[in-house]
Every structure is written in C-alpha cells, then in structure tokens.
C-alpha cells in the first residue's frame, strides 16, 4: 500500500515531466492527437456506414409472384409454408384484386386506362418481410433462389439490388480502415513511448537512486506510466474535440449522419489512455532492461 507521502511524491514527479518540457509535451499531444483524429474519423465513417446499411436492409422487401390459375384457397394456404422459410418474418397475401386496386390508386387520374383491359393482368403475390439477421444481400438472394424453385411461384423480385454493391464497398472500407487504424495506433504508441523515453533520460539519476535505495519496480515506473496516460488522455480529448467541432460546423451538409454517443466518446478517450499506458510501458521496460545490461 502506498502512503500519503508517497502518493503526493508520485503525483509531483508525474507532473514534473509535463511542466519541465511544455513544448515537447504540447507537440507530443498534438501529433498523437492528429493520429487519433484520423483513427476516430475512420471509426465514425465506419459506424455511419454500418447504420446506413442497417437502414437499407430494413427496407428490403421481397415480392413473390404466384403462377396464374391457382384458386384462392390454394393461394391462401401458401402462407404457412412461406412463414416456415427461415428468415421470413411476415408474409402478407395480396390477391389479384388487391394488386389491381393498388395499381389503380397509384395511377390516380389515369386509372381509366385499366378499364380497357379485358381481364386483370396482375398476378397474386406474397409480400415477405425478413427478420433482422437475414436482410443482407447474400441471404436475400438465397431466399429468393430457394422460393423460385417452388411450383406455385412464378417469380421473385426484391428491391435494392444495389445493397450488394453497398455491402461490398462497406466491407472494403472496413478492411481499409482497419489497416490505416493499425498504422495510426502503432504511430501513436511510438510517439508516446518516445516522449516518455525522453523524460526517463532526463530523470536518469532519480531512477538510479530510487532503485539503489530500494524503491520497488512499480514505484519507479508509476510516474512515467501516469505521464504516458496523461498524454493519451489529452491527445484523446484533442482528437474528439476537433472531430466534434468539425462535425458540428459541417452538420448542415452532413445531415443524417450521426456523431459518437457520449459513451462512445468516453470509450475512445479511455482507449487513448490505454495507448498512453502501453507506450510508456514499452519505453520503461526497454529503459530498465538497458540499464541492467549497462
């Protein structure tokens, strides 16, 4: 357990690096903040893309046109088998007459045209809605192909063929942003670890004497860990601040997109603190190892 005197001492030592080298500290936070800004931007775009996809998928509907000549009873009896297809949530029956009425409504003033037809040319159909896990392009295509093999089914039409393209694109973006994010993360950890190494070099004697008089490893490390975590904290706040500011300024043009929730912002900043921790941990371990072999 640390005593009060030790805690006060550690707090002073942790902040000492900050105040002694304001320029280095500022530059570190700016560089790291920029790297994290790129990361946050990618995450935000990926998040919005995901939401767009989800919305698009919710709008997917599948129309199953039945072959002509089935009597109403047979047609109505198809509802349970449709519902039994995995992924189908709702199966709404639309008779020939309903289809015609719908078309008439849509045509409005020009509905008179239809009266010239000798008979109702529209087929009866089922309107299927899919359950959430089955709305992606692959699943929809699979269900459609499956239904087309039914003897009662004439054709299956589903809207939003572009969904597949959007999904491919989103996939590509996810991989791209993953790679960029990894590069950015390594860079951020590197920048922090470099700064902490600088602090340690200038505190060489303090470290040496602490070790000599019997400070535990944890005690020697903690001021530098705290310094690294503070760097991460401020860099994370800078990144989020700039992103939020930019988002706010462009909000009119970007209407419809969403910013991170408060929890996500907190999570991101916490993640930056973790990066700071990792960066300084790397620097400290390397320093103590080198010291041993010196």
């Amino acid at each position: 357990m640390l005593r009060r005197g030790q805690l006060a001492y550690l707090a002073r030592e942790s902040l000492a690096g900050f105040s002694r080298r304001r320029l280095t500290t500022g530059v570190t936070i700016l560089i790291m903040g920029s790297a994290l800004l790129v990361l946050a931007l990618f995450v935000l775009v990926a998040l919005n893309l995901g939401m767009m996809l989800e919305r698009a998928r919710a709008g997917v509907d599948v129309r199953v046109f039945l072959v002509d000549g089935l009597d109403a009873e047979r047609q109505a009896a198809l509802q349970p088998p449709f519902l039994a297809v995995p992924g189908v949530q709702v199966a709404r029956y639309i008779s020939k007459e309903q289809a015609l009425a719908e078309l008439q409504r849509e045509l409005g003033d020009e509905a008179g045209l239809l009266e010239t037809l000798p008979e109702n040319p529209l087929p009866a159909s089922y309107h299927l809605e899919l359950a959430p896990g089955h709305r992606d392009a692959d699943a929809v295509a699979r269900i459609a192909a499956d239904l087309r093999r039914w003897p009662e089914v004439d054709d299956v039409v589903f809207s939003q063929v572009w969904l597949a393209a959007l999904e491919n694109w989103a996939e590509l973006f996810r991989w791209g942003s993953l790679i960029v994010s990894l590069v950015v993360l390594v860079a951020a950890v590197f920048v922090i670890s470099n700064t902490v190494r600088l602090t340690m070099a200038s505190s060489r004697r303090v470290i040496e004497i602490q070790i000599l008089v019997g400070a535990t490893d944890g005690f020697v490390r903690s001021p530098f860990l705290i310094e690294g975590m503070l760097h991460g904290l401020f860099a994370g706040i800078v990144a989020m601040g700039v992103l939020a500011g930019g988002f706010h300024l462009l909000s009119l043009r970007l209407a419809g997109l969403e910013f991170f929730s408060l929890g996500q912002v907190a999570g991101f900043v916490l993640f930056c603190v973790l990066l700071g921790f990792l960066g300084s941990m790397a620097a400290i371990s390397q320093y103590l190892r080198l010291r041993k072999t010196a």
Partner: protein
Amino acid sequence: MADIAVNRWGPLDPRVIIGFFHVQLRYRDQLALDDVTFSISNGEFVCITGPSGAGKSSILRLITMDLFPTQGQVVVRGMVSTRMGRRRIPHLRREIGFVFQDFRLLEDRRVYDNVAFVQLVVGAPQAQVKKNVMRVLTQVGLWDKRDRLPHELSGGEQQRVAIARAMVNSPKILLADEPTGNLDPVTAQEIIDLLFRINDGGTCVIFSTHDHEIVKTFGQRVMVIQDGRLVSDQERRIPERDRAPRLTERMYQPGQDHA
C-alpha cells in the same frame, strides 16, 4: 530480522552480515571476480583496496544484488543470492546505504529534498520524514544548509549530503565506493572521520579506495583485490602511533562551516 541462512558451506555465523562464498563473476567475456571468499560481521569497518578495475565496485554491486555471481553465493543480511526473488531486492536495498565518488545528488532539488526523497521512496510515514532528515543532516553538519541547491555547496559538503541520504533510512550497512576520490586531502579526511563516526553508531561500513595514502592511515581491516582475486585480507590492529599520519590533523566538527 535476518534469519539464519544455511548454504552448501554450512550454517552461517549469525554475526555475519555479508558473506561471499567462492564467488565468481563473469562480465561478458571477462572474469571480474574469481573465487572470492570472505565474511564481514555486524558493525565492522572494512576497507577494500586495489587498483582501479580490480573488482572493488563489482563486490559492492554484488552486495546490493545489482549483480549476481556466476558461481558461488553472496549472503547479505541472511538473504542468499541464489535464492533471491526479484521482488525482495528492494527490501534488501533499504538496509544498505550507498555513497559514490561523484556524489550523484539530484541537482534540481534542495539539500533537504535530496535526503527526504529517499524516505518518500520507501514510504516512511510523513511525520517521521522530517525528524529523520533533520537527524542525519545534523549528524553531517548541514542542517543549516538544508535549503541550498547542491551546486551551491563545496565538494565535501555535497559528499556529506550524499552520506546523509545514504543514512536516512538507518541502514545496517553503508557502502562507500571511492567516496574521497574527488576530494582534496583535508576534505577527504573529514569524510573518512564522518564514516568512522557512523561506524561507531553500529553501522557496518565498507569503504573502497585505490588510494594507498588513505589505506595507510587506517587501523582497520583491509582487503586487497587484484585482478579479481582477494590477495590479502588482514585484520589489522595497528596501534595509533604506528599508523601513517592523518591526511589532516583538522578534525571535522558538526555545525562547523566549510564553505
């Protein structure tokens, strides 16, 4: 309290505070120490001498367990080098004070903070920090200069601050590695006298030097290291009149100003 240690060479005399048993130390490709065996009892004053690079500093670093023997065993305060967990090393070091030739003070901190820092590191209760710092700084005669920065002090004074720092945790062992190397003879004698007084208080003092002039003034046990071997270990009982004259006749008095 040190428990009684037992090793291959049998149980240890409980009075032994530092024991080296057939210690070999290989440093990269070089043999820094070879088959060194000796023991030092509680409260002894021992001078380790020999040419530079003979292995004096290696012995001191083995005692603080900064280095470990490649063969043999080092036992300090009942802690055995071959059975020493990394986590226990800090606890050993809290019982050892260390003084260097180049003082190694923290230049940006006042004399008081240089000493108090050591107490904070080991987590001494706040109320005792000031008391202890005052005790050791008074002992070395520098309480009046507690607010000075190290560079405002003379070399001898800086070394006295370093000694106060080494003593503030009340160690059982004080290691002094060439503590007079950077000092003129008058100041060197003051430092040696201070170490004797610390030894009178019951602390075991191990003093390393390559300076024969200093060794000749000693009536104490002198160990001579040459090329990594212990070539002589004499318990000298030289009467005062047969010793070489002191480096200076001027005695150090507490509170006296040497600026």
